[in-house]
């Protein structure tokens, strides 16, 4: 793909060393159909824009829906795989681009020649203003100040996030085991305010505590015994501690009705998208 984009830049007459030009090439690759003549090939190579996959976009039924490999294979992904693939292409082309988070969302931030930031939203094929992101994601000012959201990440911080992904995939397969703490603590080591890692930790201790309480219930143990159970107390403290950390980072749940509205709009978009996909198939059939 990076080679493809190299040829694309040549044919467009873009400056091969210019960061904006490289990002423009990647942006066009994600949002447009590119028909490019490669030096060593007779036929031009055509790539198609990448679309949002509305089906199971949380990856709840099929975790691999979140994967970049799935995106490359099928040409559709979501707000997890699309920006990551963008970063991969940028890395291959020596371009500078950053990942940034919003609640349940990630997007790309780039800087222009004057040093001003721009947000690239790959799911809707557009750029967005910060105000737009803040409003649609219900981002609070304290979350911005603690830099859990809307902050351009360094490469190391992105790798730390990949560790989180690895841990979440692990949990999906094997459940909440001690191993995941190794991963999250590594992620936190490289990014103190790594919200995902803190959330994983919190859920880990929450589940563990529930497990302990259930055992007390099943075995008919008394509350007094629980009060003397230092290990249980430790788990409780860890759970509350991670909760306090998350609160301090400014993490806030979206108000329920706002979230519902958002889901509904996603559904509407999904229907439009389905329609577009069908159109594309039909056009393919009539040989366009």
């Amino acid at each position: 793909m990076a080679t493809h984009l190299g040829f694309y830049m040549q044919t467009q007459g873009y400056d091969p060393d210019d960061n904006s030009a490289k990002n423009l090439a990647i942006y066009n690759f994600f949002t447009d159909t590119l028909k490019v003549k490669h030096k060593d090939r007779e036929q031009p190579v055509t790539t198609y824009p990448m679309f949002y996959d509305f089906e199971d976009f949380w990856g709840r039924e099929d975790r691999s829906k979140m994967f970049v490999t799935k995106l490359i294979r099928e040409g559709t992904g979501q707000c997890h795989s699309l920006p990551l693939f963008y970063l991969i292409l940028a890395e291959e082309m020596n371009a500078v681009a950053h990942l940034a988070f919003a609640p349940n969302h990630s997007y790309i931030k780039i800087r222009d020649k004057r040093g001003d930031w721009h947000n690239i939203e790959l799911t809707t094929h557009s750029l967005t203003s910060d105000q737009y992101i803040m409003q649609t994601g219900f981002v609070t000012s304290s979350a911005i100040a603690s830099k859990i959201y809307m902050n351009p990440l360094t490469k190391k911080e992105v790798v730390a996030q990949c560790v989180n992904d690895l841990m979440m995939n692990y949990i999906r397969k094997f459940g909440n085991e001690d191993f995941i703490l190794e991963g999250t603590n590594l992620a936190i080591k490289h990014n103190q305010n790594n919200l995902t890692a803190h959330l994983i930790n919190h859920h880990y201790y929450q589940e563990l505590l529930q497990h302990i309480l259930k055992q007390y219930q099943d075995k008919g143990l008394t509350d007094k015994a629980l009060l003397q159970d230092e290990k249980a107390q430790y788990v409780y403290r860890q759970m509350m501690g991670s909760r306090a950390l998350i609160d301090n980072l400014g993490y806030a749940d979206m108000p329920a009705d706002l979230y519902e509205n958002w889901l509904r709009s996603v559904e509407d978009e999904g229907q439009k998208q389905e329609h577009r996909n069908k159109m594309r198939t039909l056009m393919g059939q009539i040989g366009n």
Partner: protein
Amino acid sequence: MKSALTIFFLASAILQGYGQSEPQERRYEEAYNELKSMLKGAVPPSFKRAVFISENAYMGGTLDYDDYNRKIDFLVQVSRSTLNDGVLDYSESDFEEVEKQFAVFRVLKYPTPYVEKGENNSFNIYSTRPFTYDFEDAFGESDWTKMFVTKLLATHTGNCHSLPFLYKILAEELGTAAHLAMAPNHTYIKQWTEQTGWFNTELTSGQFPIDSWMMASGYIKLEAIQNRLYMDTLSTKQSIAVTLTDLVQGYQKKFGTNDDFALKSLNLVLDYYPQYANALLLKAELMKSRYEDLMKDRGAKAPADLWHDPQARKHFREMQDQYVHIYKLGYRQMPREMYLNWLMDLEERDTEEKRERYTFEAPQPFEEYGQKVKVSTLSKGKYQEFFDTDTVTQIGSVVLNRISGQISHFVKYDTMHSEATLEPDVISRWLSPDPLAEEFYSWSPYNFVKNNPLRFIDPDGRYPIDIITRSYAPFKTFGPPFAKYYGDNRGHSLDKNASYRTSATINYDTETFKSSAIGGLSYSRAVEAEKGSYSNTYVKNRSDGSNLDVHSYGNNADLTGSWDIDQFTKLSVTTNGDIKGDHILNITGTISGDDFPNQESFVTDADGNTLWLGNFATSVGPAKGPTWNLARKNEGDVHINVNININVNADGVFQSIQRGDKTISIEDWNKQFEQK
């Protein structure tokens, strides 16, 4: 025009030797020292005291701290009296904190009842006067006292400086936290609840805007939030640093910008609150003013004319660094066009005429390659959502080149960019319900108050009515000999301020079919006792749309174990005809409850016209009544049947009563009930 208060201030100032410059400056030095010892921790920091120190220095020491405390104490007492009144329907574990926050909000924004002792052991119930916004000179440009909490306490009008200050003071006195937060030319309150997390209280409008609205309408850059320049919660010391900055600004108004005292104070402020935009700018402007003085002394025309002198060059560089620092923190001045759009919004609210808005275009990062991309914005061009569309930008009174990071040139402070000199209407961008309402999710931390106790004054022509059901003891004293209490000593009355034992006010909006009920507060004092107690009326609002159903009850808080007086207001309220023209308001149903003491119910319109719904006089004597008729479970003894058709005009004002073909004037109608 100067306010009456200012004249009062000046008059008292003159009497006490205002205008003698030396004691004045010494007073400032003393104020500085006291604030400094708070910041250093030598004395416990008190925001309440710090505000007073700053204001008193400006007033030449003529303000009375006891009086200031008395006024604050009074408001705290009234706020405290609303606690536990049962109106807040909130179930998280921080209920007590939220109730305190809510109490302060109520007492500042809405009339809140309180009781005061009158002559001859009588007790009068009054309402507090809400604090409102003073549009005139909202930034204290021509009269610095406009910013003062002492001015707010005296006149009940204030601005986005004094209102949140007073809120914070009251909250702290009541024992709950309220943080100041900064936006450009603006201060507001941030608080935390378990249910909503952080939320903003906008005292100028009484609303609770969400952060994205603050950001978009306040022209706040993302970096400014990241660097905590704006929208961050201020600590106690930071808040004290803000009052020290106020002190400096008052001082500068008296003695000029360029002064060692001002510089010393600003440096101290920045030690404790390094990212305070106001102080950073004041310091930069002070440094620039000094450089300009130097230029004037040496007859230089341009700043660069002095650079051959290493000392002057150093001064220039330090000043430049200060401005660049402010720029890097994310500070940007709002573009003039954005103000103008706001102005038009406000004008159009009153007229049909539509005017062309300035539409902001989003910058195109790939323009040089001839490609335009779609940019999604929140306001669709109505606000400027991008901050750097030019290579130069103005910070205070200098223009910076963003690329070179150097001062391009000096300008006169462009007042067009400052809110201070614009029409007062412009300030109301913080006051008005946001013009982009449909884009913004709106919420309130007190939305969960199902029995919404706030009787909203309806801006869009709806007409809310109040139905008031009260019980009162007509006797001078009542109760058995061992527990004899003062009564209300009156007959049936339509006076809203008449004293009572229990009272419920049901506010109902005839257009939205929403109702809220608020319980009253009464004072009970035993004849033998020195002091009495306040008793709450509790309300349970079980209304369903236009079918009002409110149970109000309360006992004598002064007498443990005393019986509740119960009242049930069950009324159906409907309108007949076009509500935008003359129409009929029909109220039917019953008011029932205990047959001791007396009961009365009436309805009022927005203009204050009052109509009887019914009343009941107990037949039981004062001594036996409470122990006999209240102790029994006989709460359905009284039945006041209501069936009334009121002629109402387009403005929702009561005109007369309709009885079949007969029209009865309000006066005649009410007379019937007084004769009963």
